[in-house]
């Protein structure tokens, strides 16, 4: 977004309200006013817990959900008027794969290409390339029923690329996958990014956001809490390192006071109390740990690590993401 060209996606004051289920006549505000821009080739993330409004935002971006208020321009067009044209240039990876399980892997791609009116010969060529990209060549003739979760996810991503989209929308792309399958998927998404595809993704995984996103917004209760690159956000809201201390539960209260006394007074240090552990935010974790042990405290476990987006989220919202 630094080169001054028109953004691929431009949202101003974006609001989405639904009729409230529990109160007749009431409204539920899923998205409460978002401003953001995404430039060509960027990987942009929406990070936040369940119910933060990420999926509602994605649906608006996918032109299948008219905004209640605000303006939205995608590829320079207005979804309310040109939804069809915009969708023709989007790739969508929904939270649930929604593949046709009775059809084969290749047939799923052919059918999707048909929705875009792409000539069959062209879709066949692209399908062959996409199956290679998704590492599913050997499964091309198998029914989707027989595929693992990770394979299905890769097929869903391959499917979303059939129309060679300008923008790819991924709603929680790796939720529910085992660690190995997640890493394979990240690798594929990283390749897409290098090919210049603009990626928009939602996630509640910190590591995913750090791996894939050039820039992200932290969302909470339908609003943007802050925006920046993962590095920027960490620098702005956290310290370089974190010391995690666990004490025996009956000792935690007492220990908390002492830890505060030892570390809180020092330059740039801060203590957060979680139900099961203490987090000491500090420029130098080892030094903080040395100070804690020098004060005669004996934590059950002590871990020094680098700050992550998880810490940013905790700082911005006062809540842990994994609650």
């Amino acid at each position, binding site marked *: 977004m630094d080169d001054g060209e028109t953004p691929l996606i431009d949202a101003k004051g974006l609001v989405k309200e*639904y009729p409230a289920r529990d109160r007749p006549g009431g409204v539920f505000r899923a998205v409460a006013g978002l401003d953001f821009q995404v430039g060509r080739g960027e990987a942009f993330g929406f990070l936040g817990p369940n119910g933060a409004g990420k999926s509602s935002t994605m649906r608006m971006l*996918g032109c*299948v*959900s*008219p905004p209640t208020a605000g303006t939205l321009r995608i590829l320079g067009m207005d979804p309310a008027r040109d*939804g*069809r*044209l915009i*969708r*023709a240039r*989007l790739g*969508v990876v*929904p939270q*649930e794969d*929604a593949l*046709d*399980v*009775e*059809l084969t892997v290749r*047939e799923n791609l*052919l*059918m*999707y290409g*048909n*929705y*875009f*009116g792409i000539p069959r010969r062209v879709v066949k060529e692209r399908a062959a390339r996409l199956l290679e990209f998704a590492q599913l060549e050997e499964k091309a003739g198998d029914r989707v029923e027989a595929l693992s979760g990770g394979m299905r996810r890769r097929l869903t991503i391959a499917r979303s690329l059939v*129309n060679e989209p300008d923008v790819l929308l991924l709603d929680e792309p790796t939720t529910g996958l085992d660690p190995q399958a997640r890493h394979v998927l990240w690798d594929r998404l990283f390749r897409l990014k290098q090919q210049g595809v603009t990626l928009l993704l939602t996630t509640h995984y910190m590591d995913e956001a750090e791996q894939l996103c050039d820039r992200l917004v932290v969302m909470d209760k339908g609003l943007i809490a802050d925006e920046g690159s993962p590095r920027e956000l960490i620098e702005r809201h956290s310290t370089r390192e974190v010391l995690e201390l666990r004490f025996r539960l009956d000792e935690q209260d007492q220990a908390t006071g002492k830890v505060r006394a030892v570390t809180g007074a020092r330059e740039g240090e801060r203590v957060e109390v979680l139900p099961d552990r203490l987090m000491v935010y500090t420029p130098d974790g080892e030094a903080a740990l040395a100070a804690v042990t020098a004060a005669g405290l004996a934590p059950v476990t002590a871990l020094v690590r680098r700050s992550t987006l998880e810490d940013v989220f905790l700082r911005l919202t006062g809540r842990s993401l994994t609650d």
Partner: protein
Amino acid sequence: MLLREFSAWMLRYRRTWRSTIVVSVANPLLFLLAIGAGLGRLVAPEALDGMTYLEFFAPGMLAAAAMQNAYIESAFRVNGALRRDRSYVVAAATPLEPRDIMAGHLLFITFRIASSALAFAVVMVAFGASRSPMVVLTVPAALLTGLAFATPLAAWAVTVEKFGTLNAVFRFVLMPMYLLSGTFFTLDSLPAWLHTAAYALPLWHGVDLCRTLSLGTATLAGSLVHVAYLGAFAAGGVAVALVTYRRHLHY
């Protein structure tokens, strides 16, 4: 655009047609044999103004089978496409608008009802259950009967959140209609108040239209009333579906 949705359904159908044939064609034919040709022998032709029970029952079954196929192909599949296998949600992410998805699916439903009705009518004629060349018109008549149900059902099913609701309506609305619309016996056998009420049932219009065409007793005026009544249901269903599809696919 609607053809894209239609061909998606056809592609799926190529994989599943064998199992659907059992429900949409074989079951009605078994009914035709068991009740029309078997049980029907116990009914004296004098009780039916000289026609055999098979001649009476077969065209009624044709219309009733069209309704049942409409329920399976429309209500169940429309709901499943939105909530279970989510093929509607996938299609909605492409250039297709909700109205394209609706029209394409209804076109496929038209194909399913028509092809099943055609298969049934062919067997009906082969069994000598028809008396008039007008029997060829029973296929479009059965199709119209099916569509009179399919379009309102699609409009409704896209709004239904619980699958159980669909089953309940099938059992408590469709099944009584099946029995009370003159499929198995003439309306004269019903109590007077129920007799009159049955005229309001769209299935009765479908049954009577198919039956009079098959027996050769159809009158132009009577048939037009039936066609208009069924056509109004089909058209009304499309009008409502345009709204409900948009609300539930672009919410």
